[in-house]
């Protein structure tokens, strides 16, 4: 007897919907709701095929009432169901954030652990396709700032499937943020690296484990989501200049793999944080702070550098947007800049 191993490449969108479908098949408590998740299959195809497979009682289109259905997800989770609730664009969180951060995130704590809220919020993030200031943000820092939410931000299909399965099985609220520009949609240009081999069988990837997606010795690029793919391209270019970049894909912001960041920076002595969220008071600051807090054990060769959206709303026009959102060239230039320092 022989086992046939076929390698399958999936887009990140396919990986997410496959993870969801497999978990729905395994666990009847799981259901999906959100705007256009049914017949349309999700605006970013994160729920494609689910309605056909599971029917309208388990794949529910909702009115444009995010507070309504996020609150309903909480209420259903409290009763033991395991909702997956889609916020079409993360940019819309402002109409329903009270349900998310004051209730979904805190009720377990406020109940002293007596109540559980196993639910997943999926949402599309990121720009690069000229969708302007209200449809292009990342905002994961905000979800990571408020306590009580696990925050998952995958960079590729393989990780997305494993992390989504983990998310659905987690007994806590999880927000799963997928960047539109790595979903592999047929109508939006995307980074090839995000579409990769994905086993058909179910598997999980634990939260809180960052992944060294490229080893290197000169500089550490701490990054996530689409910016991982940009960093890979930058690293290729840097390699031709003799600069060896290590790329750390955080994968989850809560829990955060602090040890992995510190280990890599200890090795390379240089840190660039490459982020698509707003620069100030967010993710890039947190990672830089981690280094600042460990200056007694780390030996740095250069000050820390951060690359992020320079505290401006995402502009619509192509040249403006390309300027505002960090690109491959900016990563390359920042790393080059880091190499010019020689601390101590």
């Amino acid at each position: 007897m022989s086992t046939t191993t076929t390698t399958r490449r999936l887009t990140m969108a396919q990986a997410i919907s496959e993870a969801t479908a497999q978990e729905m098949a395994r666990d009847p408590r799981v259901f999906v709701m959100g705007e256009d998740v049914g017949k349309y299959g999700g605006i970013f195809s994160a729920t494609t095929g689910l309605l056909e497979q599971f029917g309208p009682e388990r794949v529910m289109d909702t009115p444009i009432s995010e507070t309504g259905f996020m609150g309903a997800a909480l209420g259903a989770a409290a009763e033991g169901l395991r909702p997956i609730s889609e916020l079409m664009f993360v940019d819309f969180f402002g109409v329903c954030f009270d349900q998310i951060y004051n209730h979904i995130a805190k009720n377990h704590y406020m109940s002293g652990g007596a109540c559980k809220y196993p639910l997943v919020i999926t949402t599309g993030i990121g720009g690069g396709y000229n969708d302007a200031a209200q449809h292009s943000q990342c905002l994961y820092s905000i979800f990571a700032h408020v306590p009580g939410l696990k925050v998952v931000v995958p960079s590729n299909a393989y990780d997305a499937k494993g992390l989504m399965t983990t998310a659905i099985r987690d007994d806590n609220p999880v927000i799963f943020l997928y960047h539109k520009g790595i979903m592999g949609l047929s109508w939006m240009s995307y980074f090839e690296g995000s579409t990769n081999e994905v086993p058909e069988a179910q598997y999980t990837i634990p939260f809180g484990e960052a992944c060294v997606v490229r080893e290197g010795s000169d500089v550490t690029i701490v990054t996530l989501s689409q910016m991982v793919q940009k960093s890979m391209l930058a690293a290729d270019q840097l390699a031709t200049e003799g600069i060896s970049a290590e790329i750390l894909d955080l994968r989850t912001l809560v829990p955060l793999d602090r040890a992995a960041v510190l280990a890599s920076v200890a090795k390379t002595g240089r840190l660039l944080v490459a982020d698509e969220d707003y620069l100030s008071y967010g993710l890039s600051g947190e990672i830089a702070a981690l280094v600042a807090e460990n200056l007694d054990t780390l030996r740095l060769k250069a000050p820390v550098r951060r690359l992020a959206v320079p505290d401006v709303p995402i502009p619509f026009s192509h040249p403006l947007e390309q300027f505002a959102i960090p690109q491959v060239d900016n990563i390359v230039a920042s790393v080059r800049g880091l190499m010019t320092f020689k601390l101590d």
Partner: protein
Amino acid sequence: MQATTEQLLWMYEKMVEIREYEETMAKVYLEAKLPPKIQKGLAFDIGAGPVPGEMHLAAGQEPVAVGVCAHLRRDDTVVGAHRPHHFAIAKDVDLNAMTAEMYGKATGLGRGKGGHMHLFDPAVKFSCSGIVGAGAPQACGAALAARKLGTDAVAIAFFGEGAANQGAFHEALNLAALWKLPVVFVVEDNKYGISVEKSASTAIASNADRAVAYGMPGVLVEKNDAVAVFEAAGEAVARARRGEGPTLIEVKTDRYYGHFQGDPETYRPKGEAKALRQHDPIPALGALLRSRDLLDDESDAALRTRVSARVQAAYDFGRNSPYPEPQDALLHVFAD
């Protein structure tokens, strides 16, 4: 739907219990909050005493809680708001653990983490929230779960007339009607949202008239009366249990205390609260019971002794329970 003798007596006893609970709390709450024990210059210290923080009491609003909860089972869900005691008591939340929670004790419902606006008792499916209007969508979720799980459990969302102008109200009512969920939305119109009178916050006189916007029945209970609430709620709960969808009920009720304890109530006409107490719903139901020979001085006294024992035991339990360890603040952010 007519209340049985048992139901009438249950409502009466629960109302007496709620009232004693609130009146006791009004006293306990004041302990150590007044001069000279507090920072010089202060008239009151909200953060001092055995029960610190905000305190919203529901004395006067008992009919809403008992008239609705008389129809509920343990597996029905109730979501309350920032003024939750009467609902919690009527839903049979563990009185000791609830009281310990307000004392911030380790034996509390939330091990002291929640406090008076955040009472969670999953055993009887009770929860509440300090955010105005937030409970309504959550009740829809419980009702949705009941449908998905194939039970005939129902969910009640209780909130104030002020909450009925919050967006969450609208979204929840539409969702409930659209999906024909077994929910009953109950608005307590106690005339004020903190200091703002209903006429200064709500474009129409009765929220019951808003039911039309969702194609669901809307019922106005004009009297702060347990039996009147019981009748309106009975039909609504039965309808929900039959799978026929939600109902919106508004009850005109009375708030005897300030919005929270310590409220100067300068916005309220002088003597208003006192006047409201002329129509106290507890003696009113007592009189009805007596008129039907269901209550007399002796049984009333026995009932009050029983209730008092329960209430005072709960306060003793709360007072005498240990505080959590400070570092327990770090626990329960996530379930394992």
